[in-house]
């Protein structure tokens, strides 16, 4: 048994040395102590599982000796190394590695899904995602889909991949299906017009966008000229003028008919960063926060249909990933609704990586107005990097807005990000107000 344990520890050391985050993989003394400690612990233990003993005692002994660049990740890095050494966590295959870097390879050229997937490969990849259950590094839907297809490929390919994987993912509990047609039926019955400024304080907005971009659609009011479309006539003002003329007995002329000119709202490119960490699984008012968020997302997709914007979605928990890149809402509405309805939640929160991934998404955009909306309900582990990323995005010309949900979120950080990003920082008390908040961020783009 001592041989086996030494072998495992030697492997741990080699994995730690390979890991780029590890500065020092641990002293020889700590490995020797770990070996003897594991043996002694197994000797005095009752019925405990030896694998968990090895991992736990090994981490305890190596904790002080190993040096990493980010102290908060130390425990995860150590545990991962042990699990790999015990062959419980298969190394990600080469194809997956390349997909993550976004490079095209012979197997997965850009935007093309390699058809001959053998069942074995698919199930192995999915298993490796499923093995992250229970850890902070829990996977998300975007990670899973992007293991099989380029992250920025067409949304049709992504939908196709997800449809083929649905059965397996549902069996492993990695899928949370929400029927979007039901919730949309309710909303189509109502009209969309709502006031920007709600009477209650369930939404708190801090606007850091530039003052000249006050949301307004009307550019000018002028008198009628022959050739103006009749739909543009402002009936109210025209009727007031005509009535006044009639009452005072003066003749009615062309000048009494008022025409409204609207500013051309150019279509914007919007990327939503949605937090799918474990805190989103909490239940509030009958359904989980994530379900409420997904429904707000469906409504937002419908809303953008009216304005003709392009929408992209980035999911982030521990590792951020693009669920779908910027696509025209009008053409791909059904696809977007389908992908959004399959999102599940779990894991830790890492805001900086979501901003970075969104930055890459915006590189493919040539629109005049680009906006990123970050939706989160919690705190992140790397606030400094998040602010750096927000700055870089601003330099790219992207406006960064944030929506914070509930009282657990880091309000000051979100305000800071919105301030640096030149956008709006919205704070809402519950997920139910999310669609109001989203619409507000869209309207803040008008006139820009």
């Amino acid at each position, binding site marked *: 048994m001592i041989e086996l344990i030494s072998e495992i520890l030697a492997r741990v050391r080699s994995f730690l040395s390979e890991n780029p985050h590890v500065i020092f993989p641990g*002293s020889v003394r*700590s490995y020797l102590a770990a070996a003897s*400690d594991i043996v*002694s612990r197994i000797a*005095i233990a009752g019925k405990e599982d030896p694998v968990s003993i090895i991992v736990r005692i090994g981490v305890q002994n190596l904790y002080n000796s190993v040096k990493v660049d980010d102290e908060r990740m130390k425990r995860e890095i150590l545990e991962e190394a042990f699990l790999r050494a015990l062959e419980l966590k298969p190394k990600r295959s080469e194809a997956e590695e390349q997909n993550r870097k976004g490079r095209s390879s012979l197997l997965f050229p850009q935007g093309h899904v390699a058809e001959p997937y053998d069942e074995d490969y698919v199930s192995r990849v999915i298993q490796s995602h499923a093995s992250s259950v229970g850890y902070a590094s829990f996977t998300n839907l975007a990670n899973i889909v992007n293991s099989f297809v380029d992250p920025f490929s067409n949304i049709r390919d992504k939908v196709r991949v997800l449809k083929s994987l649905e059965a397996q993912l549902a069996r492993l509990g990695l899928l949370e299906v929400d029927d979007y047609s039901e919730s949309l039926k309710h909303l189509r019955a109502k009209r969309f017009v709502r006031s920007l400024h709600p009477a209650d304080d369930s939404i708190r907005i801090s606007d850091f966008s530039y003052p000249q971009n006050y949301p307004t659609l009307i550019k000018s009011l002028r008198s009628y000229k022959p050739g103006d479309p009749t739909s543009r006539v402002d009936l109210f003002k025209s009727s007031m003028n005509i009535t006044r003329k009639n009452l005072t007995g003066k003749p009615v002329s062309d000048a009494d008919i008022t025409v409204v000119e609207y500013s051309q709202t150019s279509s914007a490119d919007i990327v939503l960063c949605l937090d799918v960490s474990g805190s989103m699984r909490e239940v509030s008012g009958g359904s989980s926060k994530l379900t409420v968020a997904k429904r707000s997302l469906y409504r937002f997709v419908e809303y953008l249909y009216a304005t003709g914007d392009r929408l992209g979605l980035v999911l982030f928990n521990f590792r951020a990933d693009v669920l779908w890149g910027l696509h025209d809402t009008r053409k791909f509405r059904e696809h977007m609704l389908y992908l959004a309805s399959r999102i599940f939640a779990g894991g830790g929160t890492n805001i900086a990586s979501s901003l970075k991934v969104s930055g890459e998404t915006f590189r493919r955009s040539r629109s005049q107005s680009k906006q990123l909306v970050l939706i989160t309900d919690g705190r992140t582990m790397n606030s400094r990097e998040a602010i750096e990323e927000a700055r870089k995005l601003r330099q790219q010309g992207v406006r960064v807005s944030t929506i914070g949900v509930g009282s657990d979120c880091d309000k000051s950080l979100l305000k800071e990000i919105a301030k640096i990003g030149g956008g709006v920082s919205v704070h809402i008390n519950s997920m139910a107000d999310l669609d109001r908040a989203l619409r507000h961020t869209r309207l803040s783009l008008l006139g820009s």
Partner: protein
Amino acid sequence: MGLDALPRLTDLLRRQPIEVHKLVAEVVRRKNVANVLKELRKVLRGLDEVALDVLSGLLVGRHVMVVGPVGLGKTTLVETIAEIINLADPPYVEVACHSHMTASELTGDIDIAVALQSGLDHPLAYIPGPLVLAHGKFLVMDEINRLNPYSQAALLQALQEHYVFIRGFRVRTDFLLLATSNPSEYSGVYELSEALADRMKVVEITYPDREVLKAIIVWKTEQAVEHLGVSVPEPMADILATYAGLLSKDGNVEVGPSIRSMTYSLSSAIARAWLQGREPTVYDLKRETVSNLAGVIRGDFQSDSAKTEYLARKFDEAVVLHRRQQRF
């Protein structure tokens, strides 16, 4: 304690090495792990696995550092383990570390006046420090993360070479170190030097589950109020356990509630009601809890009153959660 009990310098210089971990192994073999755990459960509950991790380190001669938030039983745990193993009388030597500790406080020093008068071999000439006194026993260092680099160096020398230097005299010392520390998020003043940290294994104590926490609160409170002749109402302990769970996972709160403060809240609520000759209510509990925790909890709050309000609000949430769970 007569003068004979104090060590003389000549005795100290003639010390033989002791292999403490072998002594520990003998005791454990004689007593049986199950009995050790049984004795532990008389003092602490829910820490069986942690105690076995500490014990396994001690058995192979590894020094142990127990890390965890305030008030979860770290010091009690290491003291109890040392008492159960009982290598000598007293079973351990305890040092409460602080940032102004000097090396000579740890190793010991020679009293020059006595030495000049009565020679170096007089029992009072030499004042032994904890590092020397702990020969063949456990050394318990509380809040080791508060040591300054000078005392860390003295400790390191003792751990590394098993010798301590006092004014040029080399004194042999063998002991097993049991240290407690708070996690690195709390300012520990100084960081442990790498060499010192390398010699210790880190055992973490985390917040217990709600069920375990409730059982611990009930048990400790019973111990506290048994002389009043009152029983502990379980729903209140449940509310407190839920409350502690909410606070320990809260992002706003840096230092969470300790078991000690929970126990005192409940027992003082019971005592207050007893003084007025009635049953304790949730309002009593709320008042006592908020006042007890206001000092313990640390976090990003604007003012003390903001903190108290926040704690009160969280208590109400905990009551609602408790009632909701009662229905299932």
